[in-house]
């Protein structure tokens, strides 16, 4: 297992958002987190690279182990953790810089200085995010001139540049058209050969298409978790069945 989580509870002030979540993520697999809005799946996702640390009055308990290391330990360097566990958000958020600089940014922050090495990394990251062919002739133009789908793939390339072991994706295709969505999904399919990917999605078909495992959350609890094919053909619990068949949620 790449990541193991045990008894995860999360509180926004006095309001509890997650209840004793136990969930493990196998290496080089895609796991989809599904559930109705407000069920805690994004909160849980943000626990995995301690993004929730930035929220005032928020408190997390439980254990999260990445490659056998407790990420909540005082000795954990959060910056280093987020380099290992990259994240792509729902809305593409490129920096107001060139395409090249967007991808190179993380590399420079991490101390890479050699221009040719940086250029190689940028190219590799753009290729891995399935964007290079579309932008290779305009790498030094503004990233804000890209379409929504291209911006999102640029954000994926930016996350990949620092070579994370895990990629968290919070509804990465929810604002994109079907073609752009398909390209993101193809990237996910390619990337999982080297990365562990955890994706939050409201799109059941997308979860069925891209993931190897699916976890269903409801009201802050992990209700059911299993192989995607099983979850979408014969889930064990009626609650899961009712949600994925659109009977509630």
């Amino acid at each position, binding site marked *: 297992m790449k990541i193991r989580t045990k008894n995860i509870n999360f509180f926004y002030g006095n309001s509890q958002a997650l209840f004793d979540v136990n969930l493990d993520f196998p290496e080089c697999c895609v796991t989809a987190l599904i559930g109705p809005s407000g069920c805690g799946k994004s909160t849980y996702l943000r626990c995995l690279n301690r993004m929730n640390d930035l929220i005032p009055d928020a408190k997390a308990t439980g254990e999260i182990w990445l490659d056998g290391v407790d990420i909540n330990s005082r000795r954990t360097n959060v910056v280093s953790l987020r380099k290992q566990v990259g994240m792509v958000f729902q809305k593409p958020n490129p920096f107001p810089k060139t395409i090249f600089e967007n991808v190179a940014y993380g590399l420079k922050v991490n101390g890479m200085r050699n221009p040719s090495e940086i250029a190689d990394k940028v190219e590799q990251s753009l290729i891995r995010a399935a964007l290079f062919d579309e932008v290779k002739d305009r790498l030094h133009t503004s990233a804000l001139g890209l379409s929504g789908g291209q911006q999102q793939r640029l954000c994926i390339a930016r996350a990949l540049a620092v070579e994370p072991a895990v990629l968290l994706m919070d509804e990465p295709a929810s604002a994109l058209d079907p073609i752009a969505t398909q390209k993101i999904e193809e990237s996910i399919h390619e990337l999982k050969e080297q990365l562990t990917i955890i994706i939050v999605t409201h799109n059941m078909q997308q979860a069925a298409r891209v993931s190897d495992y699916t976890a269903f959350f409801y009201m802050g609890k992990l209700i059911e978790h299993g192989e995607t094919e099983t979850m979408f*053909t014969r889930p064990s619990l009626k609650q899961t*069945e009712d949600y994925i*068949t659109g009977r509630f949620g």
Partner: protein
Amino acid sequence: MQTKETQLQQMLSQLRTRLLVMFAAVGIALEEALLALESANKGKAQAVIDGDDLINAKENEIDELALSILVRNQPVAHDLRFVVAALRMVSELERIGDEAVDIATLTCRMDCSPSPKMFSTLAPLVSNARDIYSQVQELFKNPSAVKALELSRGDVDSTQLEFTVLQTIMTELSREGGENCKHTNLVSCSSTQGILIARALSRVCGRAINLAEQIYFIEQGVNIKHLPAEAVQSSV
């Protein structure tokens, strides 16, 4: 919780209703074909043959509706299993309709009525086909995984029954033919019909059992088609 039916739920209800109608239409065709055979009623038999177009049309309607559900709603879990099974079941039902037509066609072509002895020979198979079909029809109305599994394991009985019937006919054929050469043609004509009818009835049983397997698949999500008994037990 939503109280209003979604478009998917409405379409699934429609699919279920159409399948129930098809079950009934095929059941009637089968029963009429057997009654026509028993009474050597060629008019009744012809009505079964003529009615087959309606059954075929229903198959096409159900196919189209199932495809439409897949395209529009991308169902999952029980809904997906139901649509997939519907596509398989409608094909089985249409073929049971074809078996009824085959029996009716044999009745129409009869120049010699089957002897009462032939009827008594076929009776267990006729009764078995009626019984299995009515059971599977009831099972579709009120699904039960346990009953579906039980019914689907009955194919060994049907095969055994067909074998016994065929053996009886063959024994009868050789004995009667040997005893009285004048009646040989008559006996062989009746026996040939008997064999063909036995085959058709056996296929009805086999297809009804396939339907039971699909009902089990809908309920449990486990495909028991072509599995030996031990494998079924372990998958259950």
